[in-house]
């Protein structure tokens, strides 16, 4: 195929122009790969965070009730599913904590420490004391570190929890740091103690379930909804809003990628037009030798497409280096969901973007190549 050898020589004959064209597409490829990686990293972090720090399935009371009364029965129903690792019946409520002259509003969670630890790995977050102490000490509490600080509560101090007319005195047997906003309001209690504070008998407000397979959550929730009248909800449903938001953001991203592609495409088209302008006479000569319009078009489309793979490769390399660099930047955890930005580069992304580079090169090459094929040979040969 003589078209290919001509295209090849043209490219090798214009190293500088070719370098800049390759660079412009490589940059576009790099930026897109990194952006896709960042979005994917954020999504993954978000899921990890959600999945790690909250129940995979949450069961709420029946529609017309405030509490789950037969929570032991519910637990045994839930535990029939093989994916269920833990089912923690929890009594969550609000109260005031009082220590000396300090008063703070708190959220108390009463639960069986063994199940709750299986559910949320509470013990991993303890900075002092042992969460399991709540199994044996009825009037004991584990307190969020920020709350303890605000109350000026020391280890082992007794403080009061007040709710409406009820008031109990508990001992701070542990301090916990969950690294979330909860730390300024959280008080863990034994389930029975929380029930006393609430004063509504042997009830819980919700059940949290942890699964061996996080993607089984919708099925487990659906199963529970079918078999009981309680309201079960998967983590996917709970974080639906934020996942939807990510989807919406994806649409904007795609528009952004298309704009980048168009800019890169114009860069290539510009170079191709320059090459063709410099080669006008040559195109005329090739026509005189009998090259037809299709062949002329082929030469320049090929020239453009040949630049695709090196652009994709270089762009991929740039993206890889950029991802490594971005991974080392520390960001405040309050702004982002963790203290490091994560860029997830998947092979698929590289493949898609490589195809994208080829397509951009192909499309950008068509118009200049078409113009070249339509040149009048007499005028082309006469060009200086």
């Amino acid at each position, binding site marked *: 195929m*003589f078209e290919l*050898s*001509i295209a090849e*020589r*043209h490219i*090798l*004959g214009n190293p500088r122009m070719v370098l800049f064209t390759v660079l412009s597409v490589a940059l576009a490829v790099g930026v897109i790969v990194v952006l896709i990686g960042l979005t994917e990293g954020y999504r993954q972090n978000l899921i990890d965070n959600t999945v790690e720090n909250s129940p995979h399935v949450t069961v709420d009371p029946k529609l017309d009730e405030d509490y789950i009364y037969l929570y032991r029965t519910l637990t045994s129903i839930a535990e029939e599913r093989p994916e269920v690792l833990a089912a923690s019946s929890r009594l969550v409520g609000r109260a005031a904590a009082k220590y000396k002259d300090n008063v703070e509003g708190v959220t108390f969670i009463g639960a069986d420490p063994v199940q709750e630890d299986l559910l949320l790995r509470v013990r991993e977050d303890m900075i002092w004391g042992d969460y399991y102490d709540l199994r044996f000490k009825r009037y004991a509490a584990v307190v969020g570190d920020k709350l303890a600080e605000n109350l000026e509560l020391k280890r082992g101090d007794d403080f009061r929890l007040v709710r409406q007319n009820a008031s109990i005195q508990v001992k701070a047997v542990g301090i916990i740091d969950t690294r979330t906003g909860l730390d300024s309001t959280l008080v863990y209690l034994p389930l029975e103690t929380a029930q006393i504070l609430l004063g509504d008998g042997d009830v819980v407000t919700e059940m949290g379930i942890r699964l061996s397979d996080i993607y089984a959550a919708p099925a487990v929730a659906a199963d529970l909804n079918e078999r009981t009248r309680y309201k079960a909800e998967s983590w996917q449903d709970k974080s639906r809003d934020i996942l939807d938001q990510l989807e919406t953001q994806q649409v904007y991203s795609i528009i952004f990628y298309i704009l980048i592609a168009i800019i890169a495409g114009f860069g290539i088209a510009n170079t191709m037009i320059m090459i063709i302008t410099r080669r006008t*006479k*040559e195109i005329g*000569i*090739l*026509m*005189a*030798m*009998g*090259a*037809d*319009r*299709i*062949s002329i078009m082929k030469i320049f489309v090929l020239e453009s497409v040949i630049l695709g793979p090196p652009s994709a490769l270089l762009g991929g390399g740039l993206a890889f280096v950029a991802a490594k660099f971005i991974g080392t930047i520390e960001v405040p955890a309050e702004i982002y969901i963790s203290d490091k930005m994560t860029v997830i580069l998947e092979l698929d992304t590289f493949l898609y973007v490589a195809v994208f580079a080829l397509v951009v090169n192909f499309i950008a090459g068509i118009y200049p190549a078409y113009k070249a094929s339509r040149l*009048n*040979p*007499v005028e082309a*040969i006469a060009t200086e």
Partner: protein
Amino acid sequence: MSNIIEIKKLRKVYGDGVELLALDDVDLTIKEGEVLAIVGPSGSGKSTLLNMIGLLDTPSDGEIWLKGQNITKASPKERARLRNKELGFIFQYHHLLPEFDAVENVMMPLLIAGMDKKEARHRAITLLEEVGLGDRLHNRPNQLSGGQNQRVAVARALAGHPSIVIGDEPTGNLDSKSSDMIYELLRKLNRQMNQTFILVTHDMDMAEKTDRILRLVDGRIVCEMRRDGDGFVSQDVCRQNE
């Protein structure tokens, strides 16, 4: 000898708005194996006529017949095919492809014709040896002299065994020694292969070595001289014009 080209009432008008009549009712018949020179002042329509014969340009009116076939209204694809099979071009400047060496340049029309690379290379080397460049096969145009490049261009024009070779001032850019060499080369090939040569030239020395001289003025053939032994016989019309 049969007619290889017949041109009937050929007209070419350039421009929209101010019109320029480049060819005005030209009738011309060229026989196979003939060596023809077209002379005339600048702007007389020589190159236009040559471009019509070379199927690079289309007439405004009239007909062009090539080997008994009316090709006036041939499609661009068909014209490209005919240029490749039937015609060879030699330009004033060699117009070789700068990134390709001598052999590759000569191979190009053969590759366009779809010939196998090995076969094309063999044919190109044979031709370059014939034009005396057997030791310059792998030099690029910028490594060759003007005369050498023009010889490569001649080899390229002849590569596909065209029935007609068209030269637009083929020696216009060369010194007289190189000019003579190129012309002798063309003449030798003409005798060997019975190809038709149509040359546009300013060089009367070269024109007078051909079989027939056409003089064009303002898009009309004003004079036609045919070789007769060592001299030329001109038609009455020439004497009137002169």
